[in-house]
């Protein structure tokens, strides 16, 4: 079995390269002395290389996938809080019939706020068949409804835990606890990036605040830090320390940089064979290039008025999320491998005032998300960009009646919906189903591991072969869990 494990010797390396060429190609993210090995091969011949073949290089160099990929980039619209499937994408007329009835024993055993639990509650929103495919969509997602022929709705997702933290960890890394690498980290570990002047894995978090589990959602875990998600702010300086708080006069910056180069070259001349030192010098050069590239990629001011309008940039409600969706398009356009967009607090966590709060969450995101699909399609990017929409779980079909306030819904991990679009995914398709009342995945259940394996598959990677060796253990995103590719949703 050929595993996609980084080797110190890239098999495809055609001819020895000189150092300068090498460093101009490598740029970012070298792991320790690893590089010495690569250079050693040029300087000292293959024997030296073999002697040190256990060393590995970790960088963001573009890597060959296992097989022909359907998607080369991913945009994940993370709907933190847990959007209610029975009010959005999974209509359940039976709830009308059973309205007010107490839940079954099994459902009851999964209720979180037991004392606030009410009876079965039909959706306050109307569903109608939309598009040529006739997929039923709730009235609170009017814009997505326009694009419904481009998406696959998976209605049979499930996760194992009722708490946000645990389920967020599962959704991101496959395990209930912190410390495992996130999906995004695995993807850039496996594929590298197409644009070395931008971070490979970008996180666009909401200026109003980090989601639950905050930065742990995009951590690299035991993978090298170079694969961690990079937080890019949509307001102010996009990257941490991309610019100093107070700029020095230009000539001072120039003098300082030239002195630094001088000092470092001198130091290098005393340690001529320490490749890491050269990598560090390259790192400073890349940092300078990044200052330009990142600013350009994230500047949406040059977009046409029509585009801005489409993303809702002129409307206060949609402007913030719209801007991040538009940034995401600009980033994948420039070769960024994976972009995750998060949203303020837990706006889908509608324990109370379902009508108002779910309405707000949809109002804020529906139009920008649909615009992103439309825009990607228009520019021919949708074919190679996989868009994934969903939260950490769904909600229960029963009412939650808080001590004060209006009725809402509690967490429901056993059955919920996500949608995918582009990047080799069928359009206008519904996959799987929950039971009659929308509580539990019933037909063709899809686990988070299945979803992860499917996303890797669309990116041209076999989840069983994307391996990282550490301390004698072969680690994988799907770990020892069974995971299947959901073939039926692939076009």
């Amino acid at each position: 079995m050929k595993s996609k494990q980084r080797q110190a010797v890239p098999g495809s390396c055609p001819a020895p390269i000189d150092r300068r060429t090498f460093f101009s190609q490598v740029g970012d993210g070298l792991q320790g002395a690893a590089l010495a090995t690569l250079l050693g091969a040029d300087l000292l011949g293959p024997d030296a290389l073999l002697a040190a073949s256990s060393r590995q290089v970790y960088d963001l160099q573009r890597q060959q996938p296992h097989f022909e990929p359907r998607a080369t980039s991913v945009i994940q619209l993370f709907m933190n809080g847990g959007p209610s499937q029975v009010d959005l994408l999974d209509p359940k007329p039976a709830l009308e019939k059973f309205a007010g009835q107490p839940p079954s024993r099994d459902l009851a055993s999964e209720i979180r706020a037991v004392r606030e639990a009410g009876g079965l509650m039909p959706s306050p929103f109307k569903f109608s068949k939309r598009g040529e495919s006739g997929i039923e969509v709730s009235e609170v997602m009017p814009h997505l409804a326009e694009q419904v022929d481009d998406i696959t709705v998976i209605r049979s997702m499930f996760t194992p835990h009722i708490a946000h933290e645990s389920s967020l960890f599962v959704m991101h890394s496959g395990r209930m606890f912190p410390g495992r690498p996130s999906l995004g980290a695995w993807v850039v570990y496996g594929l590298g990036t197409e644009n070395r002047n931008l971070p490979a894995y970008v996180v666009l978090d909401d200026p109003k605040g980090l989601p639950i589990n905050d930065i742990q959602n995009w951590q690299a875990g035991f993978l090298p830090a170079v694969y961690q998600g990079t937080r890019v702010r949509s307001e102010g300086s996009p990257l941490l320390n991309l610019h100093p708080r107070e700029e020095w006069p230009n000539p001072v910056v120039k003098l300082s940089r030239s002195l630094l180069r001088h000092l470092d070259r001198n130091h290098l001349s005393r340690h001529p064979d320490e490749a890491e030192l050269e990598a560090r010098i390259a790192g400073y050069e890349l940092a300078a290039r990044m200052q330009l590239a990142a600013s350009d990629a994230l500047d949406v001011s040059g977009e046409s008025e029509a585009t801005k309008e489409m993303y809702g940039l002129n409307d206060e409600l949609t402007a913030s999320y719209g801007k991040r969706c538009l940034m995401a398009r600009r980033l994948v356009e420039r070769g960024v491998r994976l972009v995750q967009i998060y949203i303020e607090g837990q706006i889908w966590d509608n324990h109370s005032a379902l009508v108002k709060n779910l309405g707000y969450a949809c109002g804020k995101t529906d139009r920008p998300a649909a615009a992103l699909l439309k825009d990607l399609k228009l520019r021919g990017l949708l074919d190679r960009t996989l868009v994934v929409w969903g939260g950490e779980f769904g909600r229960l079909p029963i009412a939650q009646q808080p001590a004060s306030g209006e009725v809402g819904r509690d967490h429901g991990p056993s059955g919920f919906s996500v949608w995918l679009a582009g990047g080799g995914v069928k359009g206008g398709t519904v996959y799987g189903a929950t039971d009659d009342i929308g509580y539990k995945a019933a037909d063709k259940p899809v686990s988070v591991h299945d979803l992860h394996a499917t996303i890797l598959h669309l990116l041209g990677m076999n989840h069983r072969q994307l391996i990282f060796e550490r301390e004698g253990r072969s680690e994988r995103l799907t770990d020892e869990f069974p995971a299947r590719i959901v073939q039926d949703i692939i076009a």
Partner: protein
Amino acid sequence: MGREHRVLNFQGSFYGLGGGRLFLAWIGIVLLYLPVRGAQSPGFETDVLPIFQQHCLQCHSDQARQGGLSLETLESVLAGGDSGAVVVAHNPLESRLLVLINSGGMPMGGPPLEAAAIDLVRRWIEAGMPGKTADTPVPAAAPPVREREVMAAVLGAKCLPCHGRRRQEAGLDLRTREGLLKGGKSGPAIVPGRPEESLLVKRIRAQEMPPPQLQEQFSVRGLTSDEFDKVQAWIAAGAPPDPEKPPEAGPGRDSTAASMDRQFWSFQPPRRPVEPGVRGKDRIRNPVDAFLLARLGTEGLGFSPPADRLALMRRAYLDLAGLPPSPEEIRSYLADSDPRAYERLVDRLLESPHYGERWARYWLDAVGYADSEGGVSSDEIRPHAFRYRDYVIRSLNADKPYDRFLIEQIAGDELFDYKAVESYSPDQLDLLVATGFLRMGPDSTYSTEQNNLPERLDVVATQIEILSSSTMGLTLACARCHDHKFDPLSQRDYYQLSAILRTAYDPYDWLSPSMGCIGVGANCNETNTRLLPLPSDGELREVEEYNAPFKRKIAELERQLEEKARPLRKQLLEEKMAVLPESLRQDLKEASQATPEERTPVQEYLLGKFAETLEVTRAEILQKFTDFAEASKEIEQQIKDEKKKLKDKPRIRALFDMGGRPTPTRILGRGEYTNPGDQVLPGVPAVLNGELMPYRVEKPEWSTETTGRRLALAKWLTQPDHPLTARVMVNRIWQHHFGVGLVSTPGNFGSTGARPSHPGLLDWLAREFVDGGWSLKSLHRLIMTSTAYRQTSSAGGLSLERDPDNRLVSRFPLRRLDADALRDSILKVSGRLDPTRYGPADELEIKPDGEVIAKESPDGYRRSIYVRQRRSQPLSLLESFDAPLLVPNCLKRPHSTVSSQALQLENSELVRLSARHMAGRVIDAVGEDPSRQIERVYLLALTRPPTAEESAKAQEVLRQLTREWKRHLEVEVPAEPVASQAEWLALASLCHTFLNSAEFLYVN
């Protein structure tokens, strides 16, 4: 509803573990889509056994029996393994064997089975698992429900908070079958054979138990229909007891395999090898050199020339203190003409209090130290963890023998009768604080939402992982769900170790890790948290004094709130009293208005009797008067904010024996509590038991209830001949000095770990360490005074050619400062290092752009080890320079070179401000003379004076910088003197460049 989808019920199965029912569910779906081929059903011997022989018997033969399973004969297949049955006749969906091979989970490590083979096994199961041919089917029968499935997996998980060790509501104890039969106030809980008459079944059926209103508070859920069915089926069958063998002490069935496995190098006790005789004796300062030279000689290599005197000084300082020397220290060292000046320098550094601060960091990495709990979004602060950090620093500075250091940390509470002591001596206090060792992993169970059995088992697993990797270099955590794939570590070994911890960490009788517990009904107090009181008057007084102003503020806010509530309270009281008879109303009114002193006995009686009516709670008022609720929101928020400022009473974050009889420890199939297997006794990994004194528990004879289980472990672990304890520690010390250990996988000394590069040296060091009284400082001295350590790092061609990765130590490695040393060094050279030691961790500050820095004190910033280490908010500078995420621990920090590091050093406020401070200190020290300034900068940042050429170059740049800054400052008509300002800023820019330079960042 519910019932028809039973196959999907995955209650009790968690991704934290192995899937269980959850994956049966989807496999089921997959299987439904497999085409059914061939009418002739396959037989075991003819069709199935050959497949097993090819793919499975390597691990699952009668001999090997991994996981207690043999697939060699039909009988053994039907008998199943440690996790129960592997095949269920006519039911492929429930047959674990098929599920595993279908998912690729088996064969472990081998290639997956082909589709045709899987299909054959499936058809064989569908046919009822016939033997030779299709016409001898095995009768299918549902396996009977066993006692343990009901007691441990269902009742144990749902009932024990109220009917367990601490409480027996209604006199009912549900921990044992006997308890069920005996029952409580209302009679026996079960009637064997008659589920419908059993009180237990009735109460569960009515969904009265577990009581819905208490479920959240106690982190339990109602029974699923599957679980309920199990309970009923077991009672219906007469509630039979498990025909369970008493648990075997010791290695059990692994003993035969173990004798062979013990031959592996790291499971053999280290023996002192003979020091090799080599040529080049002039370069041998101690035996370390002899071992290294012997190996180098075989490659035609020798040591590189000695490092320059100041390079060695800088190396020793950064290694032992984590800080560069000051110009004054450099001068006095250069002036020291004693031939043993370097040796004396090493001694001085080992005596410096900075030594403990530097080396405690490595130990804290190894034990996964953090100042927050993790796992839950609130990431609760651990206000008391710092005591453990301080204990480690003090112990290292005192050169506490390593065996003693381990014993205290594993079982300090079992070393003296701590409950019988009125106040602790400092040493006794240390013993309790030391047990914080096994309290450092992430622990989410302070949230009632994440305090279920699986999360509790995760906490235990984390501690076992930390304990086994940090002290023994074993990857024992793998054996939680299955026997270790590659090492002779069985599930039994894992659960025996967890039985040692059981008296302190009992998943069925859990203590909250923190006073700051959260969630519905969360109620932490002294009786249910894993904290011990700190009986120190001084500290208590300090905290009270600190809290006093906040408490006053809170009282004032409460008073304001009450003022607003009073009229409403009166109104509500009248409404509530309105339902009482008129006469009574008058009496009650008078009684309630009288002060306690004035009350007559009759009035007292009345008040007691109608207490509920008379008491109008804030909650009632809030519910009734929404206007009030709205108006009081702000004050309530203020109260909350003020309460957050209160410091908790001083306590010890300790691990202690809870006394009494712990629940039995069982092997859990796939690591899930829903799969309870055989009971095990406390014990240690069988493979290590060969020549050691066995693990033996002796209960200490004193009043404090403690079993002595951990003390026995500590003593077993610190035997002089233990194959791993000394080797693992010696190896890590070597690793921190040379960048790579003699075993390059410090947390894995097993078969998948690396082999030692110098086995003789490793063993010699281990023996020397133990025989010399486990002194870490002696070990440092030995290593650092060797010729090997004193080599230069700029080596010539031969060393690079024949020893490219320096595994043979033919030169000293060039190493980047690790995150902590880098930050501390920047602070030190800029004069911003606050030298205050010990005490609560420094708080963090998050800048608007997301940068996390420490809060500044009047004296600057303290060393990184004293900064709050919060899991969700790592210090930005440390994070980008590879400070590890401690999940759960880290024995070797990763090392990356990424552009975000360049951005940090170039642009972060911390480095820019430090450069200005540094320039200021330089001017203060040497005045305006540029050449003296440059010399000072070189000494401060690089521990050496500049060469004439370097000085000239730097002075030239400084002149240009001054000119540019002056020009910049003169753009607007200046109000202040420009020349001196420009000179300072220019020097600051220059210092900034030096703080960015490779020579500052790397140790030669």
